[in-house]
């Protein structure tokens, strides 16, 4: 039986008349931890946005459970957690309100928001406006969803940005736990990981000059 979660079929992406990647194909299986590598401007974010269905590839398609994601968005999005460069945290709302809204928006139940914020070391900041928190703290509000999510596929664009060293290790442990329980993670990062290279699958994008 084919248990591929997500498959990219011959994706081509063109930005500003430059080919970022051409006929890129790969499969994402349960239990895979995939790091997308490449220099700045190589198209890492573009690839992740295409995989999440936010952008359309110039050519090719992304399939979730062998069905094009554009045809069955709802089914895909029930199983997808995407956190981009912009974390989707509103400065006018408190940490608690932000997390509660983001969880509800994706149909994830959480009875104890305070506990969820405690897991990302935000105890005592529940009622602070997100705009008053540091960059790392407001990033943590967005990342708190990871601990509550049942989504199978996580697509994370630079999840470690602004996160301290201890936080990065906790995230890595969570990643391992998620892939061990049958999930899959696709992420980009320029930071050195402590996760062994035997666990990581790498997709390397090169910078094309033509």
């Amino acid at each position: 039986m084919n248990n591929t979660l997500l498959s990219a079929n011959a994706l081509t992406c063109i930005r500003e008349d430059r080919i970022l990647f051409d006929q890129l194909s790969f499969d994402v299986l349960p239990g895979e931890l995939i790091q997308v590598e490449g220099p700045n401007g190589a198209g890492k974010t573009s690839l992740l946005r295409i995989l999440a269905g936010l952008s359309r590839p110039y050519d090719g398609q992304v399939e979730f459970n062998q069905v094009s994601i554009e045809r069955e968005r709802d089914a895909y999005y029930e199983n997808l957690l995407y956190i981009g460069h912009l974390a989707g945290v509103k400065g006018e709302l408190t940490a608690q309100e932000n997390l509660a809204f983001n969880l509800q928006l994706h149909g994830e139940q959480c009875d104890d928001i305070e506990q969820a914020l405690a897991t990302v070391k935000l105890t005592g900041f529940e009622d602070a406006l997100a705009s008053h928190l540091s960059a790392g703290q407001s990033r943590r509000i967005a990342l708190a969803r990871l601990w509550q999510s049942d989504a199978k596929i996580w697509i994370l664009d630079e999840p470690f940005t602004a996160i301290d060293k201890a936080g990065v290790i906790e995230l890595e442990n969570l990643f391992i736990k998620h892939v061990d329980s049958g999930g899959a993670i696709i992420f980009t990062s320029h930071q050195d990981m402590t996760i062994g290279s035997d666990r990581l699958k790498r997709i390397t994008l090169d910078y094309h000059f033509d």
Partner: protein
Amino acid sequence: MTHSISYWQTFSNVLSRDLKVAVRNKGDVLNPLVFFIIVITLFPLAIGSDSQILTRIAPGIIWVAALLSALLSLERLFKNDYADGSLEQMLLSPQPLFIMVLAKVLAHWILTGVPIILIAPLLAVLLHLEEMAYSALIITLLLGTPVLSLIGAIGVALTVGIKKGGVLLSLLVLPLYIPVLIFATGAIEAAALGMPYAGHLAIIAALLVGALTLTPFAIGAALRVSTN
């Protein structure tokens, strides 16, 4: 397994979030209303206190001011959400996009349309609006301002990715506002002359129903294009 929540819950979540954000950004709520008041109060000063002229042009002034103030406030509808990434999260939600869009537009109307409707009769006194025309004024505003928010939202959704989309937005949206403007002022003028104006109202109501049912899909599609 993800737990599904009802459409109504999604709708009220988005609505209450938008209202909360707006209340904490007081300037955003007050700006369109203050603009509306300023424009209308300037007219009697500029034209003079000749009540006949004012009575004649009052419906037009009130509606043009309402229209421009709606246009001014439109950008806020999706711009901030686009800038901080929460729009992306909404597009990635398994909930139907048109429900969330409808909730956002309703929040926009509550914050910009309702205050104008409440204050318009007061400002109409300044303009010596014919007494018989007050009910027509209120009804046309009640039916017409939601249409402005709904149609305007398509324009904002299309231009949300553009840095300086203000002029483009006006160009896109204003022509679509014209029918509302014509029939609304027509209704008020008819009412001032003591003539029946139900026909005008029916057309504005039809515009509202059409906008309510069709625009959320257009707005959703436009948002997907803009974030591409």
